[in-house]
């Protein structure tokens, strides 16, 4: 067979392989938010994480903004700590009063982290980013004396809500019944 035809067919073969890879990477794995993007890390302590898994999505109002990076037990307090890898563009945007809870999608679905963000004040965002805080600011926070910080890499989230565990719920329900 002449070599030009072979070259074309081999080219077609390699092209198909590359096309398959592209399809798998984009359409099947969605490399968009795969972790290839830059993230920053936050930690959150919970009393109980239920069946939350590493790589579970982190959502704000249903939109995925990151994934659970790691789950471990705090060596001094013996409570589970979840580290969250969140898209870099949200760094210094949320205040440290932001609430994070472990939720379940559907009745039998997988568990994920839901964040209800509190938007950080202008000045705390700037100081978090390392910019000089505008001197002439008459910030509301300052007036009321509330110390709110914007969340940056390595910070700890305090306001957390643990996973609902069915047995505990039933136990609570029975206890309340008994009390009445």
């Amino acid at each position, binding site marked *: 067979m002449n*070599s030009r035809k*072979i*070259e074309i*067919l*081999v080219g*077609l*073969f*390699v092209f*198909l*392989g*590359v*096309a*398959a*890879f592209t*399809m*798998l*990477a984009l*359409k*099947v*794995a*969605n*490399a968009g938010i*795969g*972790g*290839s993007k830059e993230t920053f890390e936050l930690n959150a302590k919970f009393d109980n994480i239920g069946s939350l898994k*590493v*790589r579970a*999505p982190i959502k704000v109002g249903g939109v*995925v903004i990151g994934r659970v990076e790691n789950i471990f037990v705090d060596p001094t307090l013996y409570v589970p700590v979840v580290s969250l890898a969140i898209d870099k563009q949200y760094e210094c945007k949320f205040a440290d009063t932001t609430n994070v809870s472990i939720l379940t999608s559907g009745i*039998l679905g997988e568990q994920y982290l839901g964040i209800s963000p509190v938007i950080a004040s202008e000045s705390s965002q700037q100081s978090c980013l390392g910019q000089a805080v505008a001197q002439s600011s008459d910030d509301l926070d300052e007036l009321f004396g509330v110390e709110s910080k914007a969340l940056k890499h390595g910070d700890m989230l305090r306001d957390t809500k643990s996973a609902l565990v069915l047995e505990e719920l039933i136990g609570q329900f029975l206890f309340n019944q008994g009390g009445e």
Partner: protein
Amino acid sequence: MMDLFQRLGRTTLDKFAAIGRATQMLLGSLFNLPNPRKGFPLLVRQLYMVGHQSLLIIMVSGLFIGMVLALQGYTVLVDYGAEDSLGPLVALSLLRELGPVVTALLFAGRAGSALTAEIGLMKATEQLSSLEMMAVDPLKRIIAPRFWAGFISMPLLALIFSAVAILGAHLVGVDWLGIDTGSFWSIMQAQVSLEKDILNGLIKSLVFALVVTWIALYKGYDCIPTSEGISKATTETVVHSSLAVLGLDFVLTAVMFSN
């Protein structure tokens, strides 16, 4: 009794010698391609023989395996009302296991046996000897291009297999059984990771490519140059490489996917 030990010892030594010869062949050919001007056309030709010629069987098998997976998965999942999870079920089983493994098995049967028979026949018809006498290293000229062609082809074939199979599953799951196409893809995307699933699958198929091509070429290169010897070598290629692939798959899965 002594005879038994003697035979056992001899067989063991023979096996070691075979491994030694196989390694020698691998090292002698792996980084010993002819210069690019001559080597590239040889490589392209082998890519055609090994890769492109296996394309049809890979694509057809992939399509059917994807369709069967979707059909079987659906009947189980629908009982739990979780038929939307068909996407990740199919994608994960294909990318992690079936893609690399089935491709390697088909490759061993389609291309591996052909390589063994071709090399064996070259040996039987003294073409390899005659190359040597013409001061051309057969490892360089014959083995190396085939080796690299196998090594390049198999991961590509595995990717094509998985992609076609997922399309086949889409055909059955979405078009016939009525799963929503949006949730098919989006739940799949949420569950499948590029590094963990696709790249690990690729690494698997690279390892399989190395093993299957190596076995096929070695069996041909080392066969007894008679028609009986070649047929035995061809059978051995398929049997040994299938077993090697399945065994290695277990080891690789244990290393890659156990937390």
